[in-house]
């Protein structure tokens, strides 16, 4: 069964779901994290503390809440999304968005505050200034992206609850590992684990290379 069609399909789904969730998290987390880091408003520390807590959201709790919302009996039941890949993407986005957001804020806050003033003084618009700050902080920002991806490709609780681990539809690598373990097929479970680790490594290797290439310039 190893490395047959089914494994390929499970692996592809894992990558698609987690990559999409990470991408959406980036689209949400980067602007919001920037706003939190640069903004000067009441309740900023409070919001940062909420986001930082969100970085530690237990996937099973997210899974439970998303599942209850998406069940037919739940408030969003009419969308009929429960036990679909979309449901997994929603849950994983909720898990990884705070990670990207919190680390983005931390990355930008660690820059020298005078840099902002300098850039604005040199005539940069506010958007140009933010762009330059992102470039300056590209190392920790890419780390934020990797942490976001790592938090979802490895989680099992939410994928199991909202996806249902349905064969051929919503089974991903982590839920397949749980299943093979529960069947007592420890060899298959270990092989799938190795596959997951190798994939995660390759993706992080690619991101690290991008990160370091920018650095040596």
């Amino acid at each position: 069964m190893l490395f047959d069609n089914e494994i390929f399909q499970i692996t592809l789904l894992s990558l698609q779901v987690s990559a999409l969730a990470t991408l959406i998290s980036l689209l949400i987390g980067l602007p919001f994290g920037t706003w939190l880091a640069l903004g000067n408003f009441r309740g900023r520390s409070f919001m940062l503390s909420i986001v930082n807590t969100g970085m530690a959201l237990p996937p099973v709790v997210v899974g439970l809440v998303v599942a209850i919302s998406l069940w037919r009996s739940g408030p969003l039941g009419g969308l009929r999304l429960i036990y679909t890949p979309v449901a997994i993407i929603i849950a994983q986005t909720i898990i990884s968005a705070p990670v990207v957001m919190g680390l983005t804020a931390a990355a930008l806050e660690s820059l020298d505050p005078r840099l902002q003033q300098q850039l604005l003084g040199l005539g940069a618009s506010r958007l140009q200034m933010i762009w330059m700050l992102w470039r300056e902080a590209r190392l920790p920002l890419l780390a934020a992206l990797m942490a976001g991806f790592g938090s979802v490709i490895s989680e099992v609780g939410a994928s199991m609850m909202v996806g249902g681990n349905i064969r051929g539809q919503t089974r991903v690598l982590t839920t397949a590992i749980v299943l093979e373990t529960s069947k007592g097929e420890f060899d298959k479970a270990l092989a799938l684990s190795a596959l997951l680790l190798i994939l995660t490594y390759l993706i992080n290797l690619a991101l690290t290379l991008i990160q370091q290439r920018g650095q040596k310039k």
Partner: protein
Amino acid sequence: MPLLLVSTTSTQDSGLLDVLLPAFEKTSGYDVQLVSTGSGQALKIAEEGNADVILLHSPSAEKEFMAKGFGIDRRLVMHNDFVIVGPADDPAKINGQNPIEALNRIYRAQASFVSRGDNSGTHVKELAIWKLAGLDPAGQLWHIETGQGQGATLSIANEKDGYALTDRGTFLAYQDNIELKILVQNDKRLLNVYHVITVNPEKWPQVNAKGARAFADFITSAQGQEIIREFGVEQYGQPLFYPDADKTDLELGLP
């Protein structure tokens, strides 16, 4: 002294062990560590020597386990039964049919059927009935495999308006949260039989053989069987398990 019991999720989820184990601990003085998991994994865990005694409902897999010499003593403990549940409007018209005819109708109607697909005792039973019906549902689009426990599988069947084979106990525990109805029941082919097996200490010397025997003795004793008989009657108005220590496999229709 600790005793490692590996049992199926159905005995744990139903709450039976919450009553049975304290009574055993009190009379015997053993301290039971319970791992509850599917029958497939339970047998594997025991083969690796990580259990002293196991309580399971997967007769054919258990026999294989005994034949390989991993267990020394296997005793009949109790049974309950499986039922086939489905949506109230019953699109495949299986209500009141026998299990073979019911599966035939589901197959012909290509109605959604939600399977655990996890090598558990329930899954093995389901496959056996498909085999009796001479049908193979694997790979059909309407055949949904969840790879999860009974409770999660019932929730998924409920959302998908699908049919499912389930043990009666789990269904009774879940029926308030789902809209599925029992459509097929009371057939000898749907019996769910539990055995207790003590693990062979010759394979794994660190096995607590004395404690394992004490547990097997207790669960098949008059006191243990009485606890099984009375369990669930108050809450559900019917017993969830029927004690069988005085019967033989043959009387329950097992090979």
